C-alpha cells in the first residue's frame, strides 16, 4: 500500500470504510468459512480501499465498491494459495457435521455447511443477495458478470439448498415446537 494514499483520505471516509468492517467480515466468512482468512481478507480490502479512495466516483456506492474489492481479494488469495476453485464446481461435503455440533448451533452449522458446498460463484451470489440485500444489478457489478448469470446462479444455488435443507428445516421446526 502506498502510504501517501492514507494522507489524502479524510477521517470521515476512513470512518465510513471502517463502519463496513463487520458486514464485510460476515460476507468474507460466508465465502471462505475460515475465520482467520476472513479477517485477513477484510483487512486487505480496507487497506486497498484506503489506498484507492480516489477511484470511488460515487460515495453512495461505497458498500458495493468495497464488496467488489473483497471479491478481488479472494480471487487473489486463491491465485496465491492454490489453484482457483472453478466457479461452477461443487465442493465436497465439508468435514464438520451436524453431529459434531452442539444442539444450539446445529442449524447454523448445517446451513453454513451446505452453503460452503456450493460452487464459489453461487455462494457469492446467494450471500450478496441474502446477507447484504444487494439488487441483482449490484451483484452483477460486484462480481463482474451479467445480470442473467446472477439470476441463474441464484436459481441453481437455491435449488441445491432447497433439496438439502427444506426437509431439515421442517424437522428442526418439529423439534422446536415439540419442546414448547
Amino acid at each position, binding site marked *: 500500500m502506498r502510504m501517501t494514499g492514507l494522507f489524502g483520505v479524510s477521517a470521515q471516509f476512513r470512518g465510513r470504510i471502517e463502519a463496513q468492517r463487520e458486514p464485510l467480515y460476515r460476507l468474507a466468512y*460466508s465465502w471462505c468459512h475460515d475465520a482467520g482468512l476472513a479477517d485477513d481478507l477484510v483487512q486487505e480490502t480496507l487497506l486497498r480501499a484506503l489506498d484507492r479512495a480516489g477511484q470511488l466516483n460515487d460515495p453512495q456506492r461505497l458498500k458495493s465498491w468495497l464488496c467488489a474489492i473483497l471479491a478481488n481479494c479472494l480471487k487473489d488469495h486463491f491465485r496465491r494459495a492454490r489453484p482457483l476453485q472453478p466457479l461452477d464446481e461443487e465442493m465436497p461435503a465439508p468435514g464438520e457435521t451436524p453431529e459434531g455440533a452442539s444442539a444450539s*448451533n446445529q*442449524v447454523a452449522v448445517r446451513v*453454513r455447511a451446505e*452453503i460452503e458446498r456450493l460452487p464459489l460463484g453461487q455462494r457469492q451470489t446467494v450471500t450478496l443477495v441474502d*446477507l447484504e440485500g444487494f439488487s441483482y444489478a449490484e451483484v452483477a457489478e460486484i462480481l463482474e458478470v451479467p445480470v442473467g448469470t446472477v439470476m441463474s446462479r441464484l*436459481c441453481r444455488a*437455491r435449488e441445491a439448498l432447497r433439496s438439502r435443507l427444506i426437509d431439515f428445516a421442517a424437522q428442526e*421446526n418439529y423439534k422446536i415446537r415439540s419442546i414448547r
Partner: protein
Amino acid sequence: MSHDEKVSREMQNAFVDGQLDAADWTLLVERMGSDEALRREVCELRTLKDLTRSAYAGAHSGRAAPAPERARWARVAAVALVFALTGWLAHDALAPGRILTELRGVAADRILVHIASSRGEVVDPALQEVEDYLSEARAAGRQVRVEIVANNTGMDILRANTSAYAARLERLRAAYPNLTYIACNQTADRLREKGAQVKLLPGVQVAPTALDEIVKRMQEGWVYIRA
C-alpha cells in the same frame, strides 16, 4: 408476466428478493392466492433466505462465529407453516387488486394494510378506507387493530420531509390509538445509501423489512391487504 404465464423459478426468486416491479409483484401475489404449489415454493424460498441470513447473523470479526439465537430459528422455521396452514391471503374477499373497497365489510379485527407506492390513487383510497373502517368499528364497539406498513416509494408518506399526508396521518393517529404505522428499515437503508435523509413522522415504528412484518402478522392471524 401475464396472467396465464407460468411463474418461473427466476421470477419466484425475484419475488422473495424484492426485485419485481409493482405490476409483476401484484400478479404473482394474485397467483399465489389460488396456486397452492406456487405458494409452497415461494414459502420455501423465503425460508431458505431466512436460513441463510440467520446462519451468518452471529459471524463477527476476530472470533469464531457464535451460535445464532434459538428463538430466531423457531421463527424462521415457523414461516413455512404460515403459508402452508393459512395461505398467503387469509380472506378470499380480500384478493389483491380489490384494494380496500371491501374493507369495511371485513369481520376480522386485525388488519395489515401494505402501501408500497406514494401515488395518490393508491394512498388516498387506502387512508380513506382505513379511516372509515376504524370509525365504523368504534361506533359498533368493536375492538380492532390496523397496521399500515409502508415500503418502496410508499415509505415517502411516513417521512417527515416527503410526506404529502403528514397532517392526515397525525390526525388519524391521534384519533385512533389502535392504528399503527410501520416503516420498512430496508427501504430506509437504501434511501440513506443514496444520500437521502430519512426522518420519520412522529409515532412511526420501524420493522427490519416490510415482508418480515407482513409474515409476522400473518403468522399471528392478521388479515393482509395490499393497497
